[in-house]
């Protein structure tokens, strides 16, 4: 039966050799290779739940009087957008489940992408010939952040409005063009017109998801072209790829992962409340709330906005660069420029233009690991500074003192962390210990007197075969 089906397709398309190759495509095994797959399956859940939400959501700022079942807001004048989110949450059966699953999926999507990016960075997976795959991944990270922000901005609740006015201020702060650009996007001064909301909506449900979908397809195709990279092991070498073929072993495994991701997201969506917009209330520009936080993946930007001192260069009374530019535009520009240019920088610094199908363990490239630890600690510290208002509210630590400490610490701690990372890498390289499982053993030499002595590997050959690189 299957044979006849395959025959039918092959005699009409002639593509069986490619299909056969794909069925036997080899996936090397390592838990960290699953992070990208988790992101992929989050995206699938996001698209599925998102399509459902579009059937009920109304991206309009037209006023309406809320008449639904949520008592505290009944009779309030709200926007159609906010009204429809309340209706999704209270009126349509399973609406709240789908909405919360969608929101959780977005948060987990960005966790998975971020961890995947860190894995790729610290194992040197971005090296030749995989630079194109890497650039596409970084672009998807940027798009996913924007997509998430656009998504929770559409609810027109108090938090989404506070996020949008900050976005408006950052656009306004761009040198030369800020004011004009903001007027163009918002169709006038903030909060703009309902036109702005329909633009945000089409960006959220069509433009950005399609862009992510295209980049995602290119990401997968370029992985297939280069095949997966792998860690050095008993049989794994530069010239081969060792692992489980797609059919039958890997397909069921990855299907299991897809189901597991869906299970976690639906359990979160059903059991753990997220973004209860009815508690925030509709957005009014004259209102704000203390302790407000964006979704986690924008925490680094709010941290940068908070930490920046009140530096605003001006000539006479004319502002040149408004302060919001530094934290909201310049900082992410620096971070993404670093991520995008790192493969080139590393190629230049090391002069290494060879192919790398074998991954580094972080210790194998102490310099890269140190730079990465320093850089991501810097971003991470700024991220944590973004939560300083919550720390003040919940732990009663003075906000002002926290900010002053952070302002110094974001520069000192990364340097210390980078130095420690480099030392740890060099030490691990010498001792060949596993950072969590301890020593995997190593060659010893029997001494004439009967005792044993470790045979140490020379630290000058860091890419020496490591017998305990795999489990």
């Amino acid at each position, binding site marked *: 039966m299957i044979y006849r089906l395959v025959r039918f397709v092959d005699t009409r398309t002639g593509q069986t050799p490619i299909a056969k190759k794909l069925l036997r495509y080899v996936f090397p095994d390592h838990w960290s290779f699953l992070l990208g797959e988790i992101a992929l399956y989050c995206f699938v859940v996001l698209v599925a739940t998102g399509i459902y939400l579009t059937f009920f959501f109304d991206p309009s700022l037209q006023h309406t009087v809320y008449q639904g079942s949520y008592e505290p807001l009944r009779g309030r004048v709200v926007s159609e957008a906010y009204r429809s989110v309340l209706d999704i949450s209270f009126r349509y059966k399973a609406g709240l489940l789908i909405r919360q699953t969608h929101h959780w999926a977005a948060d987990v999507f960005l966790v998975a992408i971020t961890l995947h990016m860190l894995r790729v960075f610290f194992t040197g997976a971005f090296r030749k010939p995989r630079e194109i795959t890497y650039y596409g991944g970084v672009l998807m990270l940027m798009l996913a952040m924007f997509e998430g922000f656009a998504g929770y901005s559409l609810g027109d609740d108090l938090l989404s409005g506070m996020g949008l006015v900050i976005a408006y*201020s950052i656009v306004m702060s761009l040198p030369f063009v800020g*004011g004009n650009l903001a007027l163009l996007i918002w169709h006038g001064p903030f909060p703009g017109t309902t036109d702005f909301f329909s633009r945000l909506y089409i960006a959220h449900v069509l433009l950005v998801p399609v862009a992510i979908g295209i980049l995602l397809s290119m990401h997968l195709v370029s992985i297939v072209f280069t095949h997966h990279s792998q860690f050095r092991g008993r049989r794994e070498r530069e010239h081969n790829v060792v692992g489980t073929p797609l059919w039958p072993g890997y397909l069921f495994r990855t299907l299991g992962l897809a189901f597991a991701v869906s299970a976690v997201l639906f359990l979160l*969506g059903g059991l753990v409340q997220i973004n209860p917009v009815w508690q925030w209330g509709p957005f009014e520009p*004259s*209102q704000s*709330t203390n302790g407000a936080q964006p979704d986690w993946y924008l925490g680094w930007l709010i941290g940068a906005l908070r930490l920046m001192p009140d530096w605003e260069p001006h000539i006479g009374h004319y502002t040149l660069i408004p302060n919001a530019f530094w934290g909201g535009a310049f900082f992410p520009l620096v971070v993404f420029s670093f991520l995008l240019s790192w493969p080139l920088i590393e190629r230049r610094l090391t002069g290494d233009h060879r192919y790398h199908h074998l991954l580094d363990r972080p210790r194998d490239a102490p310099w890269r690991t140190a730079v990465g630890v320093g850089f991501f600690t810097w971003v991470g510290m700024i991220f944590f500074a973004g939560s300083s208002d919550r720390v003040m509210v919940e732990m009663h630590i003075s906000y002002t003192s926290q900010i002053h400490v952070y302002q110094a610490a974001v520069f000192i701690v990364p340097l210390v962390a980078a130095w420690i990372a480099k030392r740890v890498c060099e030490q691990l390289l010498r001792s060949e210990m596993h950072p969590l499982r301890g020593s995997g053993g190593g060659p010893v030499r029997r001494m004439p007197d009967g005792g044993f002595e470790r045979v140490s590997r020379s630290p000058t050959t860091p890419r020496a075969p490591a017998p305990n690189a795999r489990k």
Partner: protein
Amino acid sequence: MRGAPKLLPRHRASRRAELLVLWALLLASAAAVGFIAVYALGADTQWLGLLIGVAFALLALGAIVTSKALVPQERKEEERRSFDHDRDDLDIAVYVQESDEGITRSRLLKTAAAGAGLTVAGALLVPLASCGPFLDVAQLRRMAWHRGRRLVDDAGRPLRADEIEVGSMTPAFAEGVDRKRLDASLIVVRLHDDDLHLPRERAGWAPHGILAYSKICTHAGCAVSMFRYPLYDVNVPRPALVCPCHYSTFDPASGGDVIFGPAGRPLPQLPVAVDERGELRAAGRMSGPVGPSWWGVQEG
């Protein structure tokens, strides 16, 4: 296919694993049926999430056990193909090179083609300008306030001077102006007269110590909705207006100067006057543009 050579390694699936997968699939179906039943009977969010989540978890279990214990286990080793196709790469370069050998003004044509491409693409982008009045930057300086406009409270009632107590904070709006506009909202506070040290040119802006400031932070446009008014000597003794978004902190006593946080210019102040009926009115224009700063904004 009968008689075809074996391609996968010989393998006998474990009976227990088969049974486990069977049970996982049956229970997944049961959970899915339960989901439908709960949906029909009132659709409690927790039950829906629990049942569909468990159904997916059981499918995951089934798929993973299938992969690990039912299908043949193999480790396949494959040689990587070389990425260097020097001959083909060279051929492509030659194709491209030879194709314009007969053209005498090749460079001129290429420049013209690039220019035409850019111009046509640019022309197609120009209609995007219809998205908004981007040249009319004057809109960003618009001012809801003029001399004599009344301050009203949240319910639209005129705000009376004797309602504003020392140490209190009152939100206010421009009467008859859309409250969604950033320039429409104020924060009104009252300090003791002798605590004030406004700049000399603002003498008379704060009758009875009543001060009115724009409610919109000059940093990132959030509503400045917190008022710190210490009732005893603490380590930061000055009263302050604070924005909860990034904690820009302004000094109401000195005319809205930034005393902490990222804001780069003072909070604009509105001169107020008390009319013969005791109601608060604007006594002039704001001291500077309202809302977040932009390129070229004039500081107050």
